[in-house]
């Protein structure tokens, strides 16, 4: 079973190089990393996949990215409900991210059903639980607990990532399980979420007939 850390931000955005982060990821128990704006490769037995996060908030940017980055894991930062529904209907999108920043009604049962039908995962950024404090952490925990409720009912996938910009931001698999338990996720659910990405990627990277 693969264990993936969805979205890390190596040098130059962060302070650690991709190779060093791959070494740390291996020590942490991961076998796959999704590095934002880095080419796919293998380092120290860790499979690195290319990741792209579209945060412009427009469908034009989303479709352009899908056209240009065909071999990348594409994550789209969530917006309002209408934008999220459009994103979840778009073929080629793998993840919807930053849902903790959007309005509570931006991801409801309709969008949850769409995510499950179109096999688009919801990204949970663990760094938000670590870096936020007080009210903002409570908000993130509440939002993730709400998403978990929808996931248990509608069965869409979760993808968990450390969102690390440094090796000091990376966490072990055991720590991920502990941190996700803060909003009620069980160990099995966390392990399933950590193994989601390669399945999604394989599913959409197969050749398909375009009419």
């Amino acid at each position: 079973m693969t264990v993936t850390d969805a979205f890390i931000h190596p040098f130059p955005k962060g302070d650690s190089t991709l190779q060093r982060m791959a070494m740390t990821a291996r020590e942490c128990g991961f076998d796959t990393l999704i590095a934002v704006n880095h080419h796919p490769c293998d380092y120290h037995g860790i499979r690195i996949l290319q990741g792209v996060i579209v945060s412009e908030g427009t469908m034009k940017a989303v479709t352009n990215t899908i056209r240009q980055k065909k071999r990348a894991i594409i994550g789209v930062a969530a917006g309002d409900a209408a934008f999220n529904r459009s994103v979840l209907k778009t073929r080629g999108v793998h993840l919807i991210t930053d849902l903790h920043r959007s309005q509570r009604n931006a991801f409801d049962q309709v969008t949850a059903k769409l995510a499950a039908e179109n096999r688009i995962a919801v990204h949970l950024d663990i760094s938000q639980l670590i870096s936020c404090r007080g009210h903002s952490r409570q908000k993130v925990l509440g939002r993730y607990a709400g998403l978990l409720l929808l996931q248990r009912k509608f069965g869409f996938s979760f993808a968990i990532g450390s969102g690390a910009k440094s090796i000091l931001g990376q966490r072990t698999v055991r720590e991920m399980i502990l941190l996700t338990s803060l909003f009620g996720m069980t160990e099995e659910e966390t392990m399933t979420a950590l193994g989601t990405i390669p399945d999604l990627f394989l599913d959409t990277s197969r050749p398909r007939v375009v009419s």
Partner: protein
Amino acid sequence: MKHFSPSLRENRRYILTRIMPTDLDCEIRELYYAISDSITSLYGDCIAAEVNAATILREDSLLVVRCRRGREKELCCAIAAIRSINGTQVRLTTIATSGTIAALRKRMRPETPGQPLTCIINSEEQSGIMYADGKIDLIKRDMKGQELVYLTKDDMEKFHATTTKPDGI
């Protein structure tokens, strides 16, 4: 104050953690405050009182933390949620849990200290520490101050770094 008899004493668990960066300059008291603050922030005062965390000993980059038996999960989670101490970014990784400090001592394997390294990148002299497994912690100095950059031996070749020491890369 008279101590409780052994049958009335609470059972404790000891957790071995590794501190990163290894050369973090802080006192054990500051580590205790960071852990205590993290538990309170995550679980509140009531659970923090039940966890009853305490820092026992620190040997280089290893730290032993104590808690009440049955509250290891909360303590490990709080340790994982620590991000910085005195404004310096840190990472505390839980290595092992045991009922005795003696058992944890067997798990304590001191890291081989790194060798000081001086190199030139983009005609600027940089210094850092190189470890036996190929990891390099480079101190990057610029107008804004200094910050650590984490890389490997292979990355140095990519940056066209030239060491000013004969035993370097």
